[in-house]
């Protein structure tokens, strides 16, 4: 067995691998302690190649990454699927098949994922010879759900349009009585073709689109994209911008976590906590507004630093507001965890084992609530995290209670981190001079720890500082299959609670 070649960023070399050896090489890297980051499908014709390719990215414990690439011919675009060896890759492979027509031969679930049945066969929008604006005619085929059949088993279809103010997704429960036997989650209803839209655009013009992969993780996505562009163009980000980026990322984590704690309570109809935490979240959104002019912090992080500096008045008011919110949040959480009625619903519901979380590649809160000690802020620091002591919170239950606990503790840790960042925020400019356009074909792979976990960005430069290919793999993309694995054995009416305890985003999964 060859040693895995983990390289230090930037400029990690690509290891060429024979298509039939890709799965075993990736599995070796994972056995050596690495974590699967993503699999990206490529059309090499735009960078002088003559075919297609798939590239797997694995991250070593120290943060270094390995890139393993297998070429796939245009005439016979297939390679042996790696999903049976690397289960975390199963949606990545199905996505590459839909969008690029790269067939993972022997994949255990050959159904369509991103392009549903109304899309015609043979249409692969991420192929370089397919223009972005082509909208092919409808095909007349029907979705085949994965169902369990047998005596007493019935099927419960839910969605894609749901009862609350939430995003669209179709859930097919196979249940016996009220007990879930299997859950088939069908997503990608809000697929907007983001990755194709940014191709050929200048980095600056691609940013607003990348940022809007998800309206509530805008800092994470803008930051991962900016870090990738900065790596490619050799830009050194000014110190104030690096620290302000931590401030913005922690504010994003805080408003998401506070809102998510309230949403978990909404999953059991505990209305007083929903109102209390909804009120706190609104105050955090107003803090964001006062600092940046946008309630969801959109438009400030940009390649080179920040598009503009934080508002002076907003910043000077921040410590006192955070202190008040910290106190009220702690009181709200105490009142929730001291309620026996609440905790009896949280404990033992939606359990994910550490083995399942590891094999499916769970990220963020979902992973840490199963005891997996992982957090990119500490493990592969970016922005100014390397100068800070990040508390990583884990829990062992893997259930709703554990995910609630991890979020509540992380929100408190974010407030402490914010206090330190405000204290140490240096003066100076927030934007660097523009860098040199990178060599066409140069690749940068970056990741940031967003509110829902690691968000990975794979960026290849085209001519004159444009995007040739971008793949964004959000933590929600990684965690959806974990939600489906958490459902069996639970009662159907507990599913909204389980779902909210992961609080995944459909928009950045579907893109």
């Amino acid at each position, binding site marked *: 067995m060859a040693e895995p070649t983990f390289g230090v960023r930037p400029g990690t070399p690509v290891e060429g691998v024979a298509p039939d050896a890709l799965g075993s090489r990736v599995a070796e890297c994972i056995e050596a302690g690495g974590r699967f980051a993503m699999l990206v499908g490529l059309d090499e014709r735009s960078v002088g190649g003559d075919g297609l390719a798939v590239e797997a990215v694995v991250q070593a414990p120290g943060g270094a990454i390995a890139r393993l690439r297998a070429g796939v011919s245009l005439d016979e675009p297939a390679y042996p699927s790696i999903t049976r060896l690397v289960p975390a890759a199963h949606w990545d492979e199905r996505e590459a098949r839909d969008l690029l027509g790269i067939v993972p031969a022997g994949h255990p679930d050959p159904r369509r994922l991103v392009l549903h049945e109304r899309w015609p066969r043979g249409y692969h929008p991420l192929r370089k010879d397919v223009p972005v604006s082509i909208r092919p005619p409808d095909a007349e085929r029907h979705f085949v759900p994965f169902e369990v059949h047998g005596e007493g088993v019935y099927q419960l279809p839910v969605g*894609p349009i749901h009862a609350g103010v*939430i*995003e669209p997704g179709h859930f097919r429960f196979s249940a016996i009585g009220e007990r879930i036997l299997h859950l088939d989650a069908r997503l990608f*209803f809000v697929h*907007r073709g983001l990755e194709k839209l940014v191709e050929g655009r200048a980095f600056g013009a691609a940013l607003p689109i990348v940022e*809007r992969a998800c309206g509530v993780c805008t800092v994470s996505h803008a930051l991962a994209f900016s870090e990738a562009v900065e790596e490619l163009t050799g830009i050194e980000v000014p110190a104030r911008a690096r620290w302000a980026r931590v401030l913005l990322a922690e504010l994003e984590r805080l408003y998401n976590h506070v809102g998510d704690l309230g949403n978990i309570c909404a999953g059991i109809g505990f209305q007083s906590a929903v109102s209390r935490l909804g009120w706190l*979240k609104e105050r955090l*959104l107003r803090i964001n507004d*006062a600092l940046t002019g946008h309630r969801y912090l959109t438009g400030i992080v940009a390649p080179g630093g920040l598009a503009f500096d934080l508002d002076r008045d*907003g910043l000077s008011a921040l410590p006192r507001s955070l202190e008040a919110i910290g106190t009220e949040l702690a009181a709200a959480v105490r009142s929730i965890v001291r309620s026996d009625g609440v905790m009896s619903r949280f404990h033992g519901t939606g359990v994910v084992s550490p083995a399942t979380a590891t094999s499916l590649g769970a990220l963020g809160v979902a992973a840490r609530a199963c005891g997996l000690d992982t957090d990119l802020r500490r493990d592969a620091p970016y922005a100014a995290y390397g100068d800070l002591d990040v508390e990583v919170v884990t829990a062992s239950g893997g259930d709703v209670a554990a995910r609630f606990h991890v979020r509540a503790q992380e929100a408190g840790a974010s407030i402490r981190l914010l206090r330190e960042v405000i204290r140490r925020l240096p003066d100076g400019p927030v934007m660097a001079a523009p860098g040199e356009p990178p060599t066409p074909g140069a690749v940068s792979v970056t990741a940031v720890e967003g509110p829902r976990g690691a968000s990975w960005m794979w960026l290849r430069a085209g001519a004159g500082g444009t995007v040739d290919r971008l793949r964004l793999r959000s933590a929600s993309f990684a965690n959806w299959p974990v939600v489906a694995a958490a459902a069996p054995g639970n009662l159907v009416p507990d599913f909204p609670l389980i779902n909210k305890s992961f609080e995944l985003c459909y928009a950045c999964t579907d893109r």
Partner: protein
Amino acid sequence: MSGVPPAGGSPSGTPDVVVVDELMAAPRLRREVQRTLGRSLHVRHLDAGSCNGCDWEIAALLNPYHDLQRLGIDIVASPRHADLLLVTGIMTRNLELAALRTYEAMPEPRLVVAVGACAISGGVFAGTYAGRDGIGEVLPVDVFVPGCPPRPEALIQGLLLAVGRMPAFAAGRPPSGPAAADGGAS
């Protein structure tokens, strides 16, 4: 539950002022709803391919700050119960069928409000293979609420603007074309 924030509860004075203004205006808005509709307005939210930003602002309408129900407006679980469809997103191809069925399930008269840049024109996603450049290509829009996302105050204004158009529908007259809410409400 009071929507009045405590003194000093917000980092900068500005956002609180908006809420106070809005509360002062509330009796007038309530009269408007009652005068034009004479009953409660039931709203169904439909995400037709958004980034989830507009949707979180719609969710924020229900928090104790904005407390949408105080205006006699509520979000309902089924299109069968809805007078108004509040639509976000570009109208993706994967959702189009379900979105049309949602609209068709609503009783008449029914209103459609397009929320945010994507629902209006496709926003930053305009020109994509994966959907339409706004919901107006497939649904009859009564009011556009601009923003990315629109602030909750702009959403409330858009809803009330839509309600003001209800009599034209009830009398069987065709609407006089889409109206635009003033996105600069806050």
